[in-house]
């Protein structure tokens, strides 16, 4: 029979809309103020911490809704923000520096809903308030570092194999080694080719120069490593800031996006993020003449650096160890209760340290802190130019052959030791980063945006609703049902999709979808009217109307979808949000306005003998 849906099809429509509605419901429950406690530097919150927190809260007579332990984090919910703020201060004070305590808003999703994966939509920073940063990684510096590492590695290798060379110098994307004898070069070539498979080792025509270049693959690895390392370090730093649900994500080739919801004190955040620094350990040049060096006659293998108070020292040019091998640094006290800093290295760092110190016992070693400060200028390729500021932060005597873990003593007061440990931990960045974009949205503006967006959606929805009802009567009501179902589905899918975030332009996208979603129904209904005018029977007119409009609807929506997908690909933050809601809206609207309305129309008017349609 014409215009009858099989039962399964009607059921499918009902089930899909019901599922959409189910997953949209978490958005109705609102949020309650909470305090989130998470461990720092490998510490995890456990049942013991949970009991402690409960005890602290009870001691201070703070009413809490619940305190739960989840994924190594503890979440305490409160009924009002006053208690939440008090609790934050108390916990921050009591738990010490092993845990970060952050304010948070937790959704009040009922347990049964949460159990089936129901969560409310994630709000973008323009709606929730907070700050987002875009950081740029200085890739040139990462490559420069790899080159200087190559220089010292080559020197070590040639020396240990007793191959004589005239010089080893950095060159474009690699290193150039000059020899005095052809035989030396040949020996070196075999050796280097064997040891460094990721380098292109080549002899020049003069038979005395050997050039080693990093392969594209190697360069890519260096860049990859630089960005990954920065992401890891930023994650750690962000954790120390005490922010609930921060986002640190890579974007493109050399950028990192950091989103800190709810953060208002952006100055502090920036100080911590901007502190790009590295550490280097060098031997002190005890033979060089400091007085001469101060007059400008610096020995060829040495450099002249100063400490914070301006006291100069001559250091060996060769770097014994770079800070990226440091895995941890803690301040503490030695057996005589003198402050000390315990340093742990990774295994490669341990080996280097061991090699570097074995023949230098009793000699002083300097720790150099290097900061990269952006100068605000850019080079020809548009990369930011950095100024390198080097400072000696400690000089200590090597007491024995050092390995993977060692300590620096005699750093003065406990506060100084603490500071040194902090600098050592922060000093592992291989490539410096700078903030190239910042967007901060205050909480009032965020709340206002939510209100405005919501109002615009409701107003637009209401106007279209009234128009459709007046213009198409009963069929208009069917289209409105579809519109409502469409809105529910968009919200349901947005809540369910892990990466989807609702932003202000995203809300605008929903408004736009509301306006455009009725288009499919207008197309169908106009076509049905036309068919009736042409003298078709009612049932045939409905059938033809839906059929003829279908391919038009598909074509029209696919093209809009193309635009939306491209927008998603290039857009960031809020604009991406617009592309997401627009894309979801296009797909759900096709479903509700074609299949959804057909199910209703078929159920009410389908297969009956009718002389007129309320259209």
């Amino acid at each position, binding site marked *: 029979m014409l215009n009858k849906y099989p039962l399964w099809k009607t059921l499918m429509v009902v089930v899909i809309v019901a599922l959409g509605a189910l997953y949209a419901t978490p958005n109705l429950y609102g949020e309650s103020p909470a305090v989130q406690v998470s461990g720092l530097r490998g510490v995890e919150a456990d049942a013991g911490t949970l009991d402690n927190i409960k005890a602290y809260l009870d001691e201070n007579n703070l009413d809490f809704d619940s305190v739960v332990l989840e994924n190594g984090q503890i979440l305490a919910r409160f009924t009002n923000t006053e208690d939440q703020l008090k609790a934050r201060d108390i916990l921050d004070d009591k738990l010490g520096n092993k845990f970060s305590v952050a304010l948070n808003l937790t959704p009040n999703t009922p347990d049964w809903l949460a159990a089936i994966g129901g969560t409310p939509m994630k709000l973008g920073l323009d709606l929730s308030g907070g700050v987002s940063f875009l950081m740029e990684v200085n890739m040139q510096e990462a490559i420069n570092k790899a080159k200087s590492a190559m220089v010292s590695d080559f020197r070590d290798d040639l020396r240990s194999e007793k191959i004589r060379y005239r010089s080893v110098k950095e060159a474009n994307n690699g290193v150039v080694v000059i020899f005095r004898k052809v035989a030396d070069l040949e020996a070196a070539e075999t050796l280097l080719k064997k040891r460094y498979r990721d380098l292109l080792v080549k002899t020049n025509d003069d038979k005395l120069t050997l050039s080693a270049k990093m392969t594209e693959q190697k360069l890519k690895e260096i860049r990859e490593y630089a960005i990954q390392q920065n992401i890891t370090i930023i994650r750690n730093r962000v954790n120390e800031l005490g922010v609930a649900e921060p986002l640190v994500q890579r974007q493109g080739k050399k950028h990192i996006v950091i989103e800190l919801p709810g953060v208002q004190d952006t100055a502090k955040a920036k100080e911590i993020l901007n502190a790009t620094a590295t550490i280097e350990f060098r031997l002190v040049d005890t033979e060089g003449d400091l007085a001469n060096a101060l007059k400008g006659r610096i020995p060829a293998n040495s450099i002249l650096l100063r400490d914070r108070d301006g006291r100069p020292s001559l250091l060996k040019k060769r770097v014994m160890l770079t800070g990226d091998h440091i895995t941890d640094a803690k301040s503490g006290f030695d057996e005589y209760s003198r402050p000390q800093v315990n340093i742990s290295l990774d295994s490669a760092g341990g080996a280097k340290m061991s090699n570097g110190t074995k023949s230098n016992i009793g000699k002083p070693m300097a720790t150099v802190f290097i900061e990269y400060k952006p100068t605000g200028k850019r080079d020809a390729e548009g990369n930011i130019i950095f100024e390198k500021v080097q400072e000696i932060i400690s000089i200590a005597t090597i007491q024995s052959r050092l390995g993977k873990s060692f300590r620096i003593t005699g750093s003065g007061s406990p506060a100084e030791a603490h500071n040194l440990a902090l600098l050592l931990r922060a000093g592992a960045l291989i490539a410096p980063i700078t903030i190239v974009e*910042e967007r901060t949205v205050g909480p009032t503006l965020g709340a206002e945006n939510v209100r405005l*967006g919501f109002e615009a959606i409701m*107003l637009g929805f209401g106007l*279209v609703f009234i128009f459709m009802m007046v213009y198409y009567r009963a069929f208009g009501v069917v289209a409105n049902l579809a519109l409502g179902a469409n809105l529910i589905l968009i919200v349901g899918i947005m809540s369910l999709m892990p990466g989807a975030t609702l932003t202000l332009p995203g809300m*605008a996208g929903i408004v*736009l979808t509301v306006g455009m979603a009725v288009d499919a129904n207008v197309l169908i209904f106009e076509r049905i009217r036309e068919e009736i005018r042409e003298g078709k029977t009612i049932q045939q007119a409905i059938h*033809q109307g839906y059929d003829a409009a279908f391919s038009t609807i598909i074509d029209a929506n696919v093209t809009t979808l193309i635009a939306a997908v*491209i927008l998603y690909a*290039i857009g960031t933050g809020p604009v991406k949000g*617009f592309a997401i809601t627009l894309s979801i809206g296009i797909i759900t609207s096709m479903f509700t306005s074609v299949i959804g309305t057909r199910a209703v129309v078929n159920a009410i008017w389908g297969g009956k003998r009718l002389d007129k349609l309320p259209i």
Partner: protein
Amino acid sequence: MQILHLKETVKFMSYRKIALVFSALMMIASVISLATNKLNFGLDFTGGTLIEVGFEQPADLKIIRQVMAENGFADAKVQFYGSSRDVVIRLGLRGDVKAEMLGNEILSVLQKATGQTVDMRRIEFVGASVGDELAEQGGLAMLTALICILMYVAFRFEWRFAVGSVVALFHDVLLTLGLFSILQLEFDLTVLAAILAVIGYSLNDTIVVSDRIRENFRKIRNSDPEDVINISLTQTLSRTIITSFTTLIVLAALFFRGGELIHGFATALLFGVFVGTYSSIYVASLVALALGVSREDLIQEVIEKEGADQDAMMP
């Protein structure tokens, strides 16, 4: 209820000369304005710093400007934003080392100078390279969108329609850009998003019309292409008007109630939808007609695609 009761076919194509002159003039005006006035690019593209602050009482711009000048921000542009309590301060890119720290600095300066609690509503800082990259990406995105759509339409319809719809899209985008250039409205990232949405919408309209033209070429034998286009446009006219109307009312809701932040977005879409409706009637069909679209170009598909419906259509 029905808005249009058209008994006769409207002779759209007989006004094509007027439409042609009108479109040409508008496009020329847009190009001239884009060349001379340029676009008033927003922070997203130019780079710089923007601070939006809320005061408890209506703010005095003169005082704020003076405070800014005294603190070394003589180049600051100070404007109201939506209400007299909301003030936006814009600063260009500077060579300073700590450009990203400016926002917080200005906030504290204002706090001190006015003695009022100043509510930080938003701070935006965009570095120079980011803006350049974005402009490049934005242009690339528009181009990619146009090419993808051209390919899809050419695949689904016929190259003449594809060219027609892309010319229509180009027309709509150019006029919308022209509007932003002539009125010197701020062109930011959301406006770019709106323009891509305009591309989607305008195409939607064009495709509905093209679809009907194709259908009518198959149905009506031995007829002049111009007549077929007129008939098709008349048949789809009420749908075109209703859809544009519903879209325009929701956009009006956004324009009036959506707040300052998406004002530009709503403006671009309102105007874009308006010209998109016009262009789907005149520009797209006109180009297809001028390129000599005819029954033979489309007849092949009839047998393939709608063979099943053949009986119902034949009297």
